[in-house]
């Protein structure tokens, strides 16, 4: 389980569910993710995340959860 935090958004990636399709990496509008050697998404630019949650909705394996932690 990868967990990276900034002040607003937490992204959880379940490595055991991820099948390395690469949709989250390719189709993120703000390029939050980069692939590791295995194709697993690494959260590289969390500060650019706009919480649009398209990566979560487009993950075919329910492996991504985008969570807002400071929702005031």
């Amino acid at each position, binding site marked *: 389980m990868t967990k990276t935090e900034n002040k607003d958004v937490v992204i959880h990636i379940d490595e055991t569910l991820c099948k390395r399709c690469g949709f989250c990496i390719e189709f993120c509008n703000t390029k939050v993710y980069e692939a590791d050697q295995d194709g697993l998404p690494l959260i590289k630019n969390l500060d650019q995340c706009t919480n649009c949650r398209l990566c979560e909705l*487009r993950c075919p394996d329910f492996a991504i959860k985008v969570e807002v932690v400071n929702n005031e």
Partner: protein
Amino acid sequence: MAVKLSYREYFKEEALPLMWCAGCGNGILLRAITDALADLEIPPHQVVVSTGIGCWGKADDYMKTHGFHGSHGRALAFGTGIKLGNPDLHVIALMGDGDALAIGGNHFIHAARRNIDITAIISNNFTYGMTGGQYSPTTPLSYKTTTSPIGVAEPAFDVCSLSEECGANYVARSTVYHVTQLKRFIAAAIQKKGFNVVEAINTCPTHFGRRNIPGDTVEMMNYVKEISISKSRYEKLDEEEKAKHLVTGELVNRDRPDFLSVYREINPAASETGRGEGK
């Protein structure tokens, strides 16, 4: 303020991981359906998911609603029986392109003609994925499959035009790339009375993609994204380009009386013994 329902109320998380291949969009479609049900706040026990056979036929295994996993192509036949038996239930038939239009082709056209109050959600990946990538009624002309190694010689069915001609009340097409649009159409179809069809253009990188689209899962998704365009953009294309694209959007939205309403009208005794008015 009421707490918004989550897709988790409808999705069986303990059944993860999903059986589908890497890059298969069925999981995306499943998320869109469960999200739509959560938005509509329909209690899971009032929903019956009726499925046939194929990759997408496995979807009911991952849902907490009632499920009826029937034989190949018969999701609508079972769904019709379920709806008539208890009109209060929301019946959702999940079918693949082969399941709905080849094996269950007759059930499909007659369910639309009858305008029975069922939501049909068709996962169209242009091939028979589970049995090894044979060509289906929606495989585009000249595309390669295991049973058409030099290219399929038959023109494809347009699922949405067929549904419209046969009498469906609501017909919409979206893709597993356009996820928010897809969810919106599914929610609209579930709410609408009558036979309602949502065609979700899906990815099959394992069979369809490997034989036709150079690249990987991402290129398969890019293909789905690129062939799907809005009606206004489609109408500006020439005939050759039109053949390579599919129109997305709400294509039909009308109010023909559904089967049960007509049946009750011509047979008032049925209303007296019926178990409810349905949705």
